[in-house]
């Protein structure tokens, strides 16, 4: 009996082959199916993924080269209009969806430092903070990866009794949003729902988890009771959109600028049998009203700079925040 087991085990073991000699059609099918089962925004974006397959699979034949196939898959993925989606092969990354297209984005931190800052207070990683005229505090975060000093900036600004604090998140392309609820604990007096998280739970398009609300608990030691203005623009993407959605609507908080770039999805990566890598959005974040932030977070007051403004050393968006 033992020897039957061994023979069976070897048979099972050897029957699993590496599938890396698949034809372009098979690779495209693998790609299409994986995206079909894992991508979360088909319904929200009203993309007919079947139609995308019909259109693109027709371009594949026995003469299709690797370069051709990569372009066809790139085109298919771009139909989803999602800046978080990625496709990579050795030595090449596919083009990302340009979520800034059609928007005027003009922002220059140097203009602020030269024209508006009266007292530079500090910088740490991607964080810069300073005082503007009329005792207005200013903090700029250009990336959501190194911002551990953020909380101490709140404390410093509070200690200086600033008249208001401007948090400038313009052109912040995102990073790690995990610590945002904790960061906002200094702005809430009671346990406050900041939004909700959902993710794919199965292969069908509507297989998603019940949205789970994410809360911020008040910081027992510190409450920032000073008005806060958050500056956002179309370049504020991903984790910055999360931040904008979470902070929007809190007491004393006003959002000024453009609609953010969105990017509500958290992506998940995978490797196809030909070795190429892909990542698509598999989770979503809803604002306090239950609306997905994938398309962007709207400001309370809409305003944008022109190129001429910045060239002339003027930041109208910042001035609106100062005078608000």
């Amino acid at each position, binding site marked *: 009996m033992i020897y039957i087991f*061994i023979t069976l085990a070897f048979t099972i073991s050897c029957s699993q082959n590496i599938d890396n000699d698949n034809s372009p059609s098979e690779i495209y099918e693998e790609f299409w199916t994986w995206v079909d089962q894992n991508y979360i925004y088909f319904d929200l974006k009203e993309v007919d993924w079947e139609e995308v397959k019909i259109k693109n699979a027709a371009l594949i034949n026995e003469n299709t080269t690797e370069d051709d196939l990569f372009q066809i898959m790139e085109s298919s993925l771009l139909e989803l209009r999602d800046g978080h989606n990625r496709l990579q092969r050795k030595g090449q990354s596919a083009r990302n969806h340009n979520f800034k297209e059609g928007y005027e984005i003009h922002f220059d931190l140097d203009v602020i430092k030269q024209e508006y800052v009266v007292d530079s207070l500090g910088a740490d990683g991607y964080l810069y903070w300073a005082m503007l005229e009329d005792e207005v505090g200013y903090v700029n975060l250009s990336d959501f990866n190194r911002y551990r000093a953020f909380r101490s900036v709140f404390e410093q600004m509070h200690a200086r009794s600033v008249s208001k604090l401007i948090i400038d998140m313009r052109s912040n392309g995102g990073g790690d949003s995990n610590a*945002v609820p904790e960061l906002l604990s200094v702005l809430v007096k009671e346990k406050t729902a900041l939004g909700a998280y959902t993710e794919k739970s199965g292969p069908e398009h509507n297989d998603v988890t019940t949205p789970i609300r*994410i809360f911020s608990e008040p910081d027992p030691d510190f409450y920032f009771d000073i008005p806060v203005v958050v500056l956002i623009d179309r370049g504020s993407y991903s984790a910055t959109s999360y931040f904008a959605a979470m902070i929007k609507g809190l007491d004393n908080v006003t959002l000024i600028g453009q609609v953010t770039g969105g990017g509500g999805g958290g992506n998940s990566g995978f*490797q196809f*049998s030909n070795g*190429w890598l892909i990542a698509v959005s598999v989770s979503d974040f809803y604002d306090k009203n239950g609306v997905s932030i994938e398309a962007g977070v709207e400001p309370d007051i809409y305003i944008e700079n022109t190129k001429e403004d910045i060239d002339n050393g003027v930041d109208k968006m910042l001035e609106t925040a100062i005078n608000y």
Partner: protein
Amino acid sequence: MKFTYIIIILLLINPSLYSQENSSNELSIQVGLSSSSIKDLRLSNRKFRSWSPKYAIGYVKSNDNRISSFRMQFSKINSSDGGLLSLMTIRPEIYYSYERKVKDGIWLGGFFDNNTLLNFPTNTSSVFNSNPISYTIAQSIGPRVSYLKSLDNNKINLRTSAQVSLLSYVVQPAFGHPYPSQFLEEGKFNPTREGMAWPLTKSGKIATVNKFNSFRVELGFFYHINNSLKIGVDYNLNIQYANTRGKSTYISNHDIFLGATYIH
């Protein structure tokens, strides 16, 4: 889980089971090489093959009619497909088995094991930033059969065993990100990923052979140097397949161990 381990320990130390003559206790240490083949559909549609060192310690308590054994194995496997993705696999395994002699040379019983498979993509691509781990944690029970043979006046021992899991408790991530499904509930979800241990433990599913199967064959050859020491070589084949959440993981190992056993 704690209860299960307590039972195992009590069985191991229970003297009434081993009160007959010719009872022995054996402690073994083994070092070996493992050839692994891994396919984890949470991360890749490719199979990753690699050689890696593997370590094991075991404790066997036996008499003329019963054998109980406790064994821990550990391996860390680095594998690459030669392209964009590399995997680091951590695999701790704990086995407990209990068998009774049914006729000359033939032993029949059961086993319990705790088998963890952790796969980490280790390439530099940011594609896996949000799913940096794939895990399969399983506790299984099932039948085990062994054939033991002694030659040359008990100087040489041959052992062949096979076991297959029948019922398992399997923890695998939910479909999207590698969060345990219990973690994705209101009031429990924490975006900083703190407090995942208990939801992780609770999020497992009972699975039978269609969702989880593990098959293991062991072949051993041992030579007694004296009454208290034997050396030997072990070959183990282990195949495990798990698919409780819609994305399967598969691993097979061929392990060759060299080891020494202290007998008293």
